[in-house]
């Protein structure tokens, strides 16, 4: 049996050109015969059902219509067309503490707020002590509300609201109230509600909360439902939706040979999602290209592509606080048990991870470039650096802002170490962990384009040699001249990656 049936509702807002709020202005407007407002569809043809006992999430960007939808469900706004049917006692928490009176005491306010929520005095009396206990405000029962701190205020409001036993709850991000301990109690209360078979509708930007509580989720975009269903997949859709909103610095470019055809594909890692340009046209197209993840993002995560098992295909991996998480089962997410967790490598702040096939056996090893210029390569492949068994090279020469790289420049099947410094790439072709002009390959660059962008090594052509590539403003520049100068005509440009 459904608790809420939303049938084909649409909502139109009027956006006045100049807001007229007086009779005088309206009279003027009539005389000048101006169009007084524009129409704007906040919601269009929205239909869905919520089963009794179900928790439904509503997500979407700012201005996508989430709050409008919630307000229509709460009967605060009227839809211009369509109907909403609700069975059961509904409590809406678009804002906590509606109707609170600062001049009255906490006790009086509990009864007032409860009556605003449609709860009778008798019913409130029965849970009165429970409310004060839950809010931890028993001592302040007779204090005037104006003397409450904002935390106490919200606690009192939340406690009154949740103890009033509604069948259906509409919640607009009001969950994050109070300190950590109180938040835990709130989450426990929500779980309790779920266990009691109450229906909850939650509008939120906090994807973790949505993932944790919601059985199903609706994704709104520009007033229409673009996705509805299983929470995880809808959150993925949301992530890709935000993905097309333009590039931001946190987007990390990668080269990954995902399909194992010997050519590396362009890949962008952002918000925990991997976007792989499978058809090699330099642009991401959701139909022909691949989107994987989310891997679960934490600040400081560094994405890698690594052919750990030597099957010729590179897998996706994340380096997180000294540990390596390799997505062996190739679904873009990390599942403990199925996927590989290695390390810790002895994570020091500033460590930069690399995947490198140092020995040329077709499998890539894990390596760390440590500030100060040392290379630590995990030759025995256990994810931990063991002095003696593993390789320590360098120092390469310290310079702040150096970017380490593994690059198979010469096509001998082994990857070499390289450092990108400011605008130039230095490759250690004689493999001693040091760069010396004369014995190593001449510096590639300098190039103003490289200085502005992010470098990567990519075997774009599939000829077993990796080329030098710069990612800048969503475009990929391949150094076709192989001199690092990126002069006009000396590179091939692809992109922009996202349209």
């Amino acid at each position, binding site marked *: 049996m459904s608790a809420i049936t939303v049938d084909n509702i649409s909502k139109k*807002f*009027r956006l006045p050109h100049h807001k007229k*709020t*007086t*009779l*005088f202005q*309206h009279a003027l407007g009539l005389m000048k015969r101006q169009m007084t407002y524009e129409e704007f569809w906040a919601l269009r043809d929205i239909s869905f059902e919520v089963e009794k006992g179900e928790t439904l999430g509503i997500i979407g960007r700012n201005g996508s219509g989430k709050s409008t939808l919630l*307000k229509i469900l*709460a*009967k*605060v*706004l*009227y839809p211009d067309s369509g109907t909403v049917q609700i069975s059961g006692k509904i409590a*809406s928490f*678009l*804002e906590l503490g*509606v*109707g609170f*009176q600062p*001049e*009255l005491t906490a006790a009086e306010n509990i*009864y*007032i707020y409860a*009556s*605003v*929520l*449609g709860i*009778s*005095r008798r019913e409130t009396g029965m849970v009165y002590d429970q409310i004060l206990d839950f809010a931890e405000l028993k001592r302040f029962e007779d204090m005037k509300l104006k003397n409450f701190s904002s935390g106490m205020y919200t606690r009192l409001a939340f406690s009154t609201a949740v103890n009033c036993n509604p069948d259906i709850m509409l919640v607009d991000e009001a969950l994050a109230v109070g300190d950590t301990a109180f938040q835990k109690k709130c989450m426990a209360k929500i779980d309790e509600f779920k266990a009691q078979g109450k229906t909850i509708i939650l509008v939120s930007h906090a994807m973790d909360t949505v993932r944790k509580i919601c059985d199903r989720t609706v994704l709104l975009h520009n007033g229409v439902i673009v996705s509805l269903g299983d929470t995880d997949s809808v959150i993925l859709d949301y992530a890709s939706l935000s993905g097309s909103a333009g590039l931001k610095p946190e987007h990390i470019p990668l080269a990954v040979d995902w399909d194992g055809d010997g050519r590396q594909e362009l890949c962008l890692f952002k918000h925990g999602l991997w976007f792989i340009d499978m058809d090699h046209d330099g642009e991401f197209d959701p139909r022909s290209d691949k989107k994987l993840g989310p891997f679960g993002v934490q600040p400081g995560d560094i994405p890698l592509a690594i052919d750990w098992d030597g099957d010729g295909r590179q897998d996706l991996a994340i380096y997180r606080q000294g540990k390596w998480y390799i997505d062996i089962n190739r679904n873009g997410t990390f599942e403990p048990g199925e996927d590989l967790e290695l390390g810790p490598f002895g994570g020091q702040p500033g460590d930069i991870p690399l995947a490198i096939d140092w020995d040329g056996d077709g499998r890539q090893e894990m390596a760390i470039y440590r500030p100060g210029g040392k290379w630590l390569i995990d030759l025995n492949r256990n994810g931990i650096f063991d002095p003696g068994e593993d390789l320590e090279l360098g120092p390469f020469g310290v310079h702040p802002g150096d970017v380490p790289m593994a690059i198979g420049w010469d096509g001998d099947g082994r990857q070499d170490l390289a450092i990108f410094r400011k605008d130039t790439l230095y490759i250690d072709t004689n493999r001693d962990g040091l760069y010396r002009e004369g014995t190593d390959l001449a510096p590639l660059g300098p190039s103003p384009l490289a200085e502005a962008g992010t470098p990567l090594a990519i075997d774009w052509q599939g000829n077993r040699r990796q080329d030098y590539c710069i990612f800048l403003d969503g475009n990929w520049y391949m150094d076709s001249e192989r001199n690092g100068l990126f002069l006009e005509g000396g590179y091939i440009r692809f992109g922009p990656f996202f349209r």
Partner: protein
Amino acid sequence: MHELWQYRELTWNLTVVELKNRYQNTTLGFLWSLLSPLLLALVMFFVFRYMWGQGADFPAYLLVGLMAWRFFAMGTTSSVYAIAGKPSLVTKIYIPRKILVLSNMLSNLISSLLEFIIIIPIVYVVLGHLPETIVLFPLIFLIYFWFVYGIALFLSSVFVYFRDLSQIWEVLVNVLFFLSPIFYPMVQITDRTRFFYLLNPLTEFVIMYRDVMIYGTLPAWYSLVITITASIAAYVIGSITFNKLQRRFAEEI
């Protein structure tokens, strides 16, 4: 109607909150609020006492008229803000919006009742007795209440869209004060204008109040007809306007 009954506790709570806020939670607060009409009555008494050769009951005449007038003036001017002044109760939660107007009216009703309770002893002292017809007071008050409630519904909903209504209404209220027989006797009205003058429902209400509270006569039948018709008309027009406009309240506030 059914819904209003469901929310009767909220209506009552909001009425009490309104009263508590108005009188700062004290009994003295109410007495202070009486000070200004009583002072006004006193001033008028001294100013107009000899002007029209008043009888001994002029103080009672003035007080009853002023208090009856106050219910209209206070009820309508405060109702202008009944919706727009409580944005969170309109935009953040669903309650029948009429409750906001109704509770405002109820608090005015209670204030007005208290005021009458205070002036009845004064009337008794002035007249030396109280007419038995005073038992009809609640009936007249009820008709009056619906009249003012209808106007309140209209004002509160229109104000959401047109914010200069408060000033316009203030002017109108002042004009109506002089168009109603509050501080001057009806005999001043010439026969030519008398008919139109009596069409003003406020005049009729004031006359009826005085009839039952001072003169001990039953209200005239045409007074009853005019006031009941006016109350029904005000309520119907107010309700229709309110119901139509309330759909976009949450957007306009």
